[in-house]
């Protein structure tokens, strides 16, 4: 059986199969897969007996539910005004230069995707970015290169993908 179908069935067993259970199921799939493929959305629609169009509409409404194929690590750099004033552009250029991808793109090896996001609530520690669920603040081009190196080495050592917030 397809692992995504299994995942969706398990999530539906866990959360329920009503309309209000759609969001936690979508989140569950994104946590595991990083994005919602057309296949997953149709599977969810089938599992919950909802129109596929409604699942798609819900998924595309939320910024953090991606519906395009994403890399293992999703970098979301804050694009709002405080971060912009505190040097977000230089940070972004450093990331783009290091990973050789633009906004909305994914590295050829499928490890990193670069996205912009609205305010993360860290204006006092701007500029800020997220990598998956991990928060990084007071970024500079140097600092961001170090952070990305750690993530690149993580994947080299074959470490498991840690989604929990590092505090």
């Amino acid at each position: 059986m397809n692992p995504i179908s299994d995942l969706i069935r398990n999530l539906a067993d866990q959360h329920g199969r009503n309309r209000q259970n759609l969001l936690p199921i979508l989140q569950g799939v994104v946590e595991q897969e990083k994005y919602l493929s057309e296949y997953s959305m149709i599977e969810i629609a089938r599992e919950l007996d909802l129109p596929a169009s409604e699942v798609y509409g819900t998924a595309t409404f939320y910024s953090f539910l991606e519906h395009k194929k994403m890399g293992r690590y999703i970098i979301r750099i804050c694009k709002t005004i405080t971060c912009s004033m505190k040097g977000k552009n230089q940070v972004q250029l450093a990331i783009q230069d290091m990973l050789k991808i633009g906004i909305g793109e994914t590295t050829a090896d499928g490890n990193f995707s670069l996205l912009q996001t609205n305010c993360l609530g860290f204006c006092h520690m701007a500029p800020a970015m997220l990598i998956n669920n991990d928060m990084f603040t007071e970024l500079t081009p140097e600092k961001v290169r170090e952070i990305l190196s750690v993530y690149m080495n993580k994947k080299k050592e074959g470490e498991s993908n840690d989604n929990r917030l590092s505090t």
Partner: protein
Amino acid sequence: MINITINNKAVQVEEGTTIFEAAKQNNVIIPHFCYMENVHQIGSCRICVVEVEGGKTLMASCVTEVKEGMVVHTNSDRVRSVRKVIYELMLSDHPKECLSCWRNQNCELQDLGNLIQITEFRYEGAKSKDIIDTSSPSIVRDSSKCILCRRCVTVCNDIQGVGLMNPHHRGFSTFIGPSEDELLGESVCTNCGQCVLVCPVGALKEKDSTSIVWDAIFDKTKTVVVQTAPAVRAALGEVFGYDPGTLVTGKMASALHELGFDYVFDTNFAADLTIMEEGSEFLGRVKDAFTSPEKAAVLPMITSCSPGWIKFIEHRYPGQLPHLSSCKSPHMMLGALTKSYFAEKMNIDPAKIFVVSVMPCTAKKFEITRPEMFSNGLADVDAVITTRELGRMIKDGGIDFRFLPDGEFDSPLGLSSGAADIFGTTGGVMEAALRTVYELVTGRELPTENFHIQPLSGLSRIKTADLKIENPLAEFSFLADVTVKVAVTSGLTGAAELLDEIKTGKSPYHFIEIMGCPGGCISGGGQPRPVNDAIRTKRLEAIYREDEGKALRKSHENEDVKMLYRDYLGIPLGHKSHELLHTIYIQRSKN
């Protein structure tokens, strides 16, 4: 009762009333846009905002309920200027190509701009959407004109239960439709066209077929045959300013002759024929069910005249397809007969005949493209135009409709009974079938008043009736004292309910009539706008008037149908019938 003040006037209204309704009851019309009474009241367009004293912001009157002591101003300086800004912002993301838009002069956005006196565009900016989807044979979606009122979302989800039209993305990127990469023509869309009927602007429209019809009319090598569905005559008048419910059968026949059609036939003729075929099929199934259980006859049998309903069951309940009658819809039967029986009789090459159907329906445009709807390599019907398109052709053709004399349909496919007329409304096919079936079984006329079956008429979602068979003819003795149970529904949520019963083995019925659009064909997706329950009722009454005005009330007494069987088809469900008048259904994917 609640006491409120509207525009300095103290009034009393019932608890639970919205400000909009309260104002309306007291002769204050608040300018509005997305609002559709009892159907769509979600305050999405914000045009109906009013000022409530003590409130921080303006409130959408269509969703705000009155409270004791409320002081409402619907026309204050603040309300007037905010309303204009909302309208202007809506317009800033709408192409201003009114002159070349098919909704020009018939557009609710234009009307509103006129009403609130917009004389300039102050905001120009980026346009958010540009998807034009022409993949469907029935419906064209031009999202650049969409103003996100979500009426289509309401009818597609809540009224029809299809769930295809939905909002996607958010904010400025929002668009309404099937998912991003999905085309209407490849989706679960049933082509019912209810969304087209409620779209206030030009974002959803029927795919235009008038140009190919004009081409055929002007092509001297072609014999152009037109047929009109029963529901068209009860609504076409509205295009020309008649009150809803005005029958224009005679004027319509005259107009079609004047437009240059060579033969004007009546789909009603084929409706009578459908009753003969479908009635015989039903009796056959019932007979098998009662006398030869080994044949496992499939009951209840469900009518198959509505192509939107057919596509719905093919997607959603493929396991229940054997319940459908195998009859083609009446206009497909008439098309097939025109290119066979009529062509032979008149000695015309069927390949040179062009059949046009005037239908209250957008799904019929899809139906004629189905591969099953070709006989002897020729399409049974070559083009379908809606009631609205016919209205446009008549105007475009320079015909002064109101002054036309009453004309007649042409022979031999033009005569019909009153039973055929009521095919156009919910409950009508069932009533027509029972008028014939009861008489075939008992040898006596249907014993109800004026041949009507009262519980089956009207706009309720699901209607049922029981008909007890007493003293049947010897041939049908197995039906003695059997109570035949029938159900009627219109709109696809009702259909889903009845199908769920069948699926779980709980359906008590023998025969079910299903029409895809709420109210039946009288409010089909191809009918004139606007449509609401008051207008539905008027059209429905008109259809029954047409029926009662005829001496011929029962399909099996139609002499031309009898002649057709005598000269050409033989018997109902015979070999020729199967070839020309019956069809098959296919399983389609659920999503």
